[in-house]
């Protein structure tokens, strides 16, 4: 029996995430904690599952252990399927393969995975973006345009534009220029790093690109501009929902803060579009008699006896009496002891903040303080 699927999704999760500094010293970027209960990759996986895409390859080559363990057989996202499902695709050695040299090269080296399912379309996604998108609508759009490639586009402000792939398109949404991270942006329509390709076109361009020694083997730098130069039908799909690339400490912190407030900018409470994650059997959270919690998201397994303001607290965190957590993101199982204060910081998993210690400062123009995984901050220490 032929295992045919209409769409195969390929998630680029190889990013070393240098800009996330200490947070990625032992974990790949997509497995960094987010929003109290999630890992960054939960968003793209849940989007796939909710869009009816059940065949997914995750391309990874950096610190894959936690990611592999986390994804497992894909069961938390309902992606444990008898054909397809979610598979981790690490680089492997053969006559023609090697470490992944670029985003396009990573897909090229796994063409055999795609071919196995003979899909009409290949959806290329990033593992490190926070958003909710129905890919089935994107694919419908791609079909209706009879496109060879469709790129999801979001308007950004001019100041940010230099960080993205910037494109211009005509009245019919056909893209006529694309420039990756331009010095002088021609506009503010940014690529979200979400591409749909008709499989034949993708194969053709990847194979051509592989022959080209001068190519950096990247979608944004090589494949897409090449297709546009050849006047392929490359279309823009505009998206106006929440979308955030959490590639830096600041953006990761901001995206967490976006989930706070009485009506937050971004929320995972939509029951029609659940964001799923692998979670443990934690007991309910306990809020003690002296606790004070304002404008914060807190999850299961936590014991809160201190003050928490404008913060996101992940599973199993302990905050002692007299401790204060303000404008911060606290990862799993952190212990914040009596009288300690954590301000404008991200504290990675399993750390202990000693009694009376101070982490971070109330200067919001200064960089965010990051505490490493399993760090021990001694009693009374001051860390900024």
């Amino acid at each position, binding site marked *: 029996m032929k295992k045919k699927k209409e769409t195969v999704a390929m998630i680029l999760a190889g990013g070393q995430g240098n800009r996330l500094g200490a947070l990625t010293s032992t974990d790949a970027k997509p497995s960094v904690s987010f*929003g*109290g*209960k999630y890992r960054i990759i939960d968003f793209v996986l849940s989007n796939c599952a909710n869009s009816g895409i059940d065949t997914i390859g995750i391309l990874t080559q950096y610190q894959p252990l936690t990611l592999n363990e986390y994804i497992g057989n894909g*069961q*938390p996202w309902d992606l444990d399927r008898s054909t397809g499902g979610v598979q981790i695709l690490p680089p492997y050695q053969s006559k023609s393969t090697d470490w992944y040299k670029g985003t396009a090269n990573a897909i090229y080296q796994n063409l055999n995975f795609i071919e196995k399912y003979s899909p009409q379309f290949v959806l290329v996604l990033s593992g490190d973006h926070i958003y909710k998108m129905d890919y089935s609508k994107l694919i419908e759009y791609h079909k209706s345009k009879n496109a060879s490639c469709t790129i999801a586009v979001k308007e950004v402000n001019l100041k940010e534009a230099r960080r993205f792939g910037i494109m211009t398109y005509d009245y019919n949404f056909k893209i006529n220029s694309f420039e990756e991270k331009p010095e002088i942006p021609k506009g503010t329509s940014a690529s979200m790093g979400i591409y749909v390709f008709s499989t034949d076109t993708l194969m053709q361009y990847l194979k051509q690109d592989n022959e080209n020694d001068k190519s950096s083997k990247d979608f944004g730098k090589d494949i897409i501009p090449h297709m546009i130069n050849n006047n392929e039908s490359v279309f823009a799909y505009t998206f106006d929902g929440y979308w955030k690339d959490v590639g830096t400490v600041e953006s990761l912190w901001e995206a967490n803060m976006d989930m*706070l*407030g*009485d009506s*937050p900018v971004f*929320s*995972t*409470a939509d029951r029609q579009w*659940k*964001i*799923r*994650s692998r*979670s*443990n*059997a934690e*007991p*309910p*959270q*306990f*809020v*003690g*008699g*002296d*606790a*004070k*919690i*304002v*404008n*914060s*998201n*807190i*999850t*299961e397994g936590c*014991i809160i006896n201190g003050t*928490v303001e404008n913060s*996101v*607290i992940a599973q199993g965190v302990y905050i002692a009496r007299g401790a204060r957590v303000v404008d911060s993101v606290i990862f799993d199982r952190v212990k914040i002891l009596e009288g300690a204060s954590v301000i404008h910081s991200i504290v990675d998993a399993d750390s202990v903040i000693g009694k009376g210690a101070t982490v971070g400062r109330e200067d919001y123009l200064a960089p965010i303080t990051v505490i490493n995984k399993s760090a021990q901050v001694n009693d009374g220490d001051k860390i900024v």
Partner: protein
Amino acid sequence: MATLGIIFSNLHDKSIPELTKDRTMASVPFGCRYRLIDFPLSNMANADIKRVGIITHYNYYSLMRHLSNGKEWNLARKDAGLILLPPFVSGFSSDNKKLYTTRLEAIKSISDFIYSSTEEYTVMSDSDVVSNIDVNELIYDHKRNNRDITLVTKSVFVPRGTQTSRVAIKSTLGRVTEIYSINSDTHGKRNLMINITVIKTELLKSVLSESISTGDKSFTDDVLRKNTSTLNIGEYLYNGPYFCIDSLSSFFHANMELLSTDEQNNLFHVESRPIYTNVHSSPPTRFCNNANVKNCLIADGCKIEGNVRDSVIFRGVRIGKGCNVENCILFENTSVDVGCNLKNVITDKNVNITEGATLYGHTNKPFYIEKNSVI
């Protein structure tokens, strides 16, 4: 040594008619994110029992939904695993409308399941007791003393005038000598049976065959009491957390006792024995700008804008601005609109308390609001 697990899901349904109107005792919600069956089932799973049969009777839809294929308890196995045993009604029997009413009849109704067991021991448990017991140690104790049957007890103070169907035992040197019912004159510390039993599977099979031929109905009377001198029946005194849910009021108080850090630690934070449950994909709970929460247990997926104290809040509950919620148990998806005052109230699933309502119950008689109702 392989052990078989059997859980009775319905035996005590009549004790809380409010909560068991459309669910089994086993699927009564408890402690924010659990159902009562999570405790006996986790106890068995934590002892690495690989085959657990759950005897059902009626209203077991919610139980099936909750347990699914048992994967949360690591019991989704190729062989054995979790087996839901639907009610057995013989098509040939003249009174085929009648289902079991006693423990022994319930066991008879699953005779095929028991006869096919190859496990050396069987652990049986009811669903009305919340505990975190080391079942491995229990089985070890049973083996070491070379017993036929081990009954687990808990030493509990029974005040005069207590109405209960509980049974107490007396034993000398760990061997049970007397099994007696609690009556209203009983006063003082008693070792109550908590209906967790270890029995050699071969013995269970012969008890089963015998009771089929004699028509015996009661496990306590016809099996235990009759045989205290002929069988080696022992007592295992359990010291851990214990809540017996035998009335709406005891259900209410048990939930309230969970607000003590000691009870939480003893029940939920035992290193090698977590309590598992069906995991939903709820987002973290959102405390809004006007939230004021003290001394509460809270599950995920809630949105809290008001004042809440000394309460147990289940998944997906919404508490609006200006509300005062005190000493309450709010089940899944309860929605309390702006400006409500609730005290000593239990709301069942999907209840909506509309704007400005005031509802007060008494600590000994909490005000219960039925599933799906709008107040």
